[in-house]
């Protein structure tokens, strides 16, 4: 199929994103890992086929010229982030909805996805952005975590939720999906808010998540140094100082 790539809606370091009628085309840069693209497509398909969640369906994986492209359904609507920004007085309502959607995702099982502990372990082990002795502490902490198999989105933030005019929501971007611990997924969301400097929102989110899920705050907090470390592996210079403060904590002895 050929697409009309005139309507570009976003540009990222690794890809350009276009809309063409009912499709969203993620066009990756030429040297981008083929395996990562196929993996994203595979994750998306697995979630699509194993759950009844509302997600934009995968249409095809194709090549446009020398570049790989991932084509999904286009859902017309606004991201929850936009809505939050636009209606600050309704923020509580959105936050509530946000947590409910996250808990719905976490209630699903997709047995073939990779496991969160394996993924985190690999990321922390491979990076050279973290000191060996800190890694040792983090990996030990990770090792002690229970093995859960809940569907974790892995990048659950309001930008990845599209709400249509009729109020129906879609959850996008499943490239980081794993199966694992609700606390870890929540710690990730908390971290994503905090990195943006939205401390108040981060705290309100965490309180609400713990209240609705019945998970103790301490359990989510135990994951924070670990998710901070995996965030560190992305190598974003501007986050480094902030993250290293969160990572460098001691296990009680």
């Amino acid at each position: 199929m050929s697409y009309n790539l005139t309507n570009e809606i976003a540009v990222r370091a690794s890809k350009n994103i276009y809309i063409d009628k009912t499709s969203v085309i993620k066009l990756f840069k030429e040297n981008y890992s083929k395996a990562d693209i196929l993996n994203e497509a595979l994750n998306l398909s697995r979630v699509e086929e194993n759950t009844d969640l509302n997600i934009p369906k995968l249409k095809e994986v194709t090549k446009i010229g020398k570049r790989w492209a991932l084509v999904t359904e286009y859902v017309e609507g606004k991201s929850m982030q936009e809505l939050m920004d636009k209606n600050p007085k309704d923020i509580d309502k959105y936050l509530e909805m946000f947590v409910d959607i996250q808990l719905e995702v976490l209630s699903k099982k997709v047995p073939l996805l990779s496991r969160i502990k394996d993924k985190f372990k690999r990321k922390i082990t491979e990076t050279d952005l973290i000191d060996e002795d800190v890694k040792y502490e983090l990996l030990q902490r990770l090792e002690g975590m229970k093995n859960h198999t809940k569907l974790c989105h892995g990048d659950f933030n309001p930008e990845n939720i599209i709400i249509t005019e009729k109020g129906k929501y879609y959850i996008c971007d499943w490239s980081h999906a794993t199966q694992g611990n609700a606390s870890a997924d929540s710690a990730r969301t908390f971290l994503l808010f905090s990195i943006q400097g939205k401390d108040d929102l981060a705290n309100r989110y965490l309180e609400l998540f713990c209240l609705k899920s019945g998970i103790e705050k301490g359990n989510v907090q135990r994951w924070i140094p670990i998710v901070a470390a995996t965030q560190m592996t992305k190598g974003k210079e501007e986050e480094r100082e902030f993250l290293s403060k969160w990572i460098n904590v001691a296990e009680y002895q």
Partner: protein
Amino acid sequence: MKKEKLELVSSIEQLEDAILKVRKAEEEFSKFSQEKVDEIFKKVAIKANSQRIPLARLACKETGMGCMEDKVIKNHFAAEYIYNKYKNAKTCSVIEEDKIYGIKKIAEPVGVIGAVIPTTNPTSTVIFKILLALKTRNGIIISPHPRAKNSSIAAAKIMLEAAVEAGATKNIISWIDVPSLELTNFLMQNVDLILATGGPGMVKAAYSSSKPAIGVGAGNTPAVIDDSADILTSVNSIIHSKTFDNGMICASEQSVIVLDKIYDKVKEEFKKRGCYILNKEETEKVRKTIIINGALNAKIVGQKASTIASLSGFEVPKETKILIGEVENTDASEEFAHEKLSPVLAMYRAKNFDDAMEKAYDLVVYGGIGHTSSIYLDVAKEKDKLEKFYSKMKTCRVLVNTPSSQGGIGDIYNFKLAPSLTLGCGSWGSNSVSENVGIKHLLNIKTVAERRENMLWFRVPEKVYIKRGCLPVALEELKEVLNKKRVFIVTDNFLFENGYTKVVTDKLDEMKIEHMTFSNVEPDPSLRTAKEGAKLMREFKPDTIIAIGGGSSMDAAKIMWVLYEHEEADFMDMAMRFMDIRKRVYTFPKMGEKAYFVAVPTSAGTGSEVTPFAVITDEKTGSKYPLADYELLPKMAIVDSNMMANAPKGLTAASGIDALVHSIEAYVSVMATEFTDSLAIEAIKLIFEYLPRAYEKGAEDLEAREKMAHAATLAGMAFANAFLGICHSMGHKLGSYHHLPHGIAVSLVLNDVMRYNSEDNVAKMGTFPQYKYPNTLRRYASIAEYLGITGKNDEEKLEKLLQKIDELKDKIGIKHSIKDYAVKEKDFLKTLDKMCEDAFDDQCTSANPRYPSIEDIKQLYLKAYYGGNKNEL
């Protein structure tokens, strides 16, 4: 010593190789003698001790945490106290022996220990664990923390050199040079035991490694200061402890809970001694600094108070000892409530002692469950408070008036608390150990238990009077020796009506002893009858009970005696089955405090006059309570054959054959002894000789009557001590289900049971240490020999004995099968299964030389029912 070039351990392959080497070294080391091991232990302790300062300096420099001078103390402690504690401990081969009981404890090493070392005590923990390993002949591999690897490895290296120099096998100690989680995990999965000291993540990893692990947990010690405490001692002890190595000991106080009444004084004392009480704003700043997202900021661990203040954004005097935050919450939302591993202390004000305990409890449960709690109070005056406190705390150590850092590691402030740098937190902390870890946790203890035989006994009434005509003579003793005044006679109506009690009452009248007679005992006496008699006894208040009659009267009298002396006695408990009468659950009440018990048998069979047994039937439920306890032994038995001279033929036969079964079963019982054997075999001989005469001639043959009286009492003494077997188990049930006289019922199964017991290849033998192998055929044959039976082998002798028993039965009119006694086949088969199960569960079953299955009992019953040889079912 010859210096080996040590290979670096930095990969799985190298670690595998290192483990192999240590394992090989340990194989040889495990054969070392106690002397050699002690010599090595001493030399290595001395060496480690001598290096305490350089090692402390190295640890401080490498980790940037803690206080060098205090680390010297920790190293010193680990070397000296561990040596001192265990220098004389036996850890090789036989460490304990009791020759009389035949039990030996043998200590063997567990093998190779994987020791995980924390950053907080990188050298002292190494010294501690290596010394324990050497003393117990184990190999050890150190897994240091990457942040402290150089100091941990330095300590291990020094000790390895010293050990080898002292004669230990080379490679007995090893370590990971380049630590990583992968190597630590591999180590944990490939050693024989893990000694894990570290954070919860590591301890969890240790426990899930599939190898036995001694992992210990986090502490969050609260110190309660009661208003009875000595404030000066309390505050200064806490300061001394909290500042130790800049607060890095896991038992260190994390909070102090002070009773309202003395709060201000305590606070003043803290201030006076150089602690800094944070104001509200500073408290908030410290909160933000020490805890990040609920986790402890690594930067503050083991730092000085002033450094932590600077990190928080304000200054305190450089020499400040502790930063104290006055806070209220005891849950996770309060940063000060966490374990802080630094000289930062939370201070709580408690309304009263209970409030203080609640707070301490919460802090322990939240952050240091299982570890340590501490209290300061006046021990002499406040025993109750102390008891309340230690009952409430979920901690494996409760320290009293003691600095908890130095106190928890033991042997400094209390000399019975084992010195250790690995403190168990019990199941509360998900640990396998709740004590201070020591050598015993690193040993496999073999127990060598030799076979021993039970103590046995021979117990009969203190006084057994015999010979025809002895009754009135014996009774004189009641007056002249025992000075008795009130006698209660228990008998049955037949004997009463026929004047059997008159001999007794006449004599009592003559001696002017008050008496009362209860003559309502029925065959198979009921609980109701016993209660009735006991009620009369309570009214009459006898100091003597005389039972006159057969088994029923004597049993009923024994039960009345129990009820008279112990009104509340529960027969259900008393009748509880036992495997060993001396280990029974129920303790029988003491008997004889109110009344002296005299038994006068009027038939030659039951033996109850000399036995500790009695059976009573609950008429409401039909259940029988067989009681057995030496408390039930009569105090005096008077066996006067005049009382039996006119016994009817049927009674003579049934009780005589009962006595025969008593003696045969006692003779082959697993509990038989020479004491019971001689009585049993003599009784058997007398019965074969005199029972037909007594049956035939009755009162005309007084010699036969007397011999039978003695035979029955001899048999009674034998089975009072050796117990019986399954003839009685089965006879009891047959008699009660189908209303056969007891003696007849047991005799009907006798021959089949004897054949059954005599088999050489039994499915299961009876369990009793004295009973070593199935030998019942020989036992029966020896009875036959005593009776003068000859035969070419034991089988033939047994056959002839069985024949002789049949002949005896014929002579005294006893039939050979259950069927012959008009028990209907239909009724018999209907009750059979229930009878089998009940017989199996009878108290007599356990002394039988062959342990029967319920099916075996069924087959025996069937054979006994149809009789003879037409029993191939």
